[in-house]
């Protein structure tokens, strides 16, 4: 019999068994998503800014007719929807990590995260509804404010 403990002998339970429940790939996927969505968002946002502010007549062209004309095309619908969803998830996840890092009390953390998720749901649902149910030619509006295809 040796005095040295057998390394395969049963060990005392972990000091923090709760950690077993917080394992999993959630944080991994979150981390990867932040990087991937960041790269895509750079393209989407600068493309959006260029098309709206620089291309053609530039910033002066923006009015109801301009936006309505863009959202009549499925390409810009998908572009803006992607931008909305990616930016909102990216931003919400970022603020979530900041709350995790800075809020020390459990109640503060819960309240802040609750407000955050509420804001996320409101903005995403509202934005998605607007993009899909948008009417570019509301009846009874003066024709000079509407996109050109409304009068054709």
């Amino acid at each position, binding site marked *: 019999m040796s005095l040295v403990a057998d*390394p395969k002998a049963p060990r005392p339970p*972990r*000091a*923090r068994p709760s*950690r077993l429940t*917080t*394992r*999993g*790939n*959630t*944080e*991994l996927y*979150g*981390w*990867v998503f932040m990087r991937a969505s960041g790269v895509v968002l750079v393209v989407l946002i600068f493309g959006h800014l260029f098309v709206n502010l620089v291309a053609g007549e530039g910033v002066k062209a923006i009015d109801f007719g301009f936006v309505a004309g863009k959202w009549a095309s499925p390409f810009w619908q998908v572009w803006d929807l992607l931008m909305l969803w990616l930016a909102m998830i990216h931003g919400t996840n970022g603020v979530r990590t900041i709350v*995790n*890092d*800075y809020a*020390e009390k459990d109640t503060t953390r819960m309240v802040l995260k609750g407000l955050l998720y509420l804001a996320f749901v409101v903005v995403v649902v509202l934005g998605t509804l607007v993009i899909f149910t948008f009417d570019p030619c509301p009846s009874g509006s003066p024709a000079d404010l509407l996109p050109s295809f409304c009068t054709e």
Partner: protein
Amino acid sequence: MTAVAEAPAQKVGEVASFTVTMRVMRYLPDENGDAVPRWDEFQVESHGTDRVLDALHKIKWEQDGSLTFRRSCAHGVCGSDAMRINGRNRLACKTLLKDLDPSKPITVEPIKGLPVVKDLVVDMEPFFASYREIMPFLITTGNEPTKERLQSAAQRERFDDTTKCILCAACTSSCPVFWTDGQYFGPAAIVNAHRFIFDSRDEGGAQRLEILNDKEGVWRCRTTFNCTEACPRGIEVTKAIQEVKRAMITRAF
């Protein structure tokens, strides 16, 4: 050409001496456990070859015997005397007073994020609990070989940097994520997991990655590089953490 010393201001072999002001954080809880930390100032006669640890020794031995701090080897190997010196985590035994601008008071505090027991002594248990969780020992399967477990120089080189850790907690207690609630595993635990994950002889890598894939694991690292700057052994801590992250991602996808 022979180098000619131009009228030396001091004799050869003579070491400059100066008086330095040490501002030390003192803390002694009463039996109810409450106490207010306070700053004590000490004037210490020092030499150019003295380290912060020598100044603390002089205070303890000649001025105030109640000053409490940890030290063992006093030569930067045991990792006992990590403390916050002039706002940065360093080993008191590896920091020369003359490198710290002795004309101004030198502040010495306990490392942050761990409960202070007395003066500069902190409770290291949360730190070692995280260290134990990553299983810092060789895990193998099958029968024990009758000779050494061989490894090439390149395989040894892969994790050479992280074998240097002396568990002084300078990195973990410099990490702002660890400061918030102390639940994060901390750089030191991840460095020591890295030492085994990338060891070709070890077979517990998947288990350790699983443990560090925790909500409080490597994904809480914000790459602020505080740990790399604090490490008295010069370990590239943040790089090691990133390598563990990469290993997890290649495993998951």
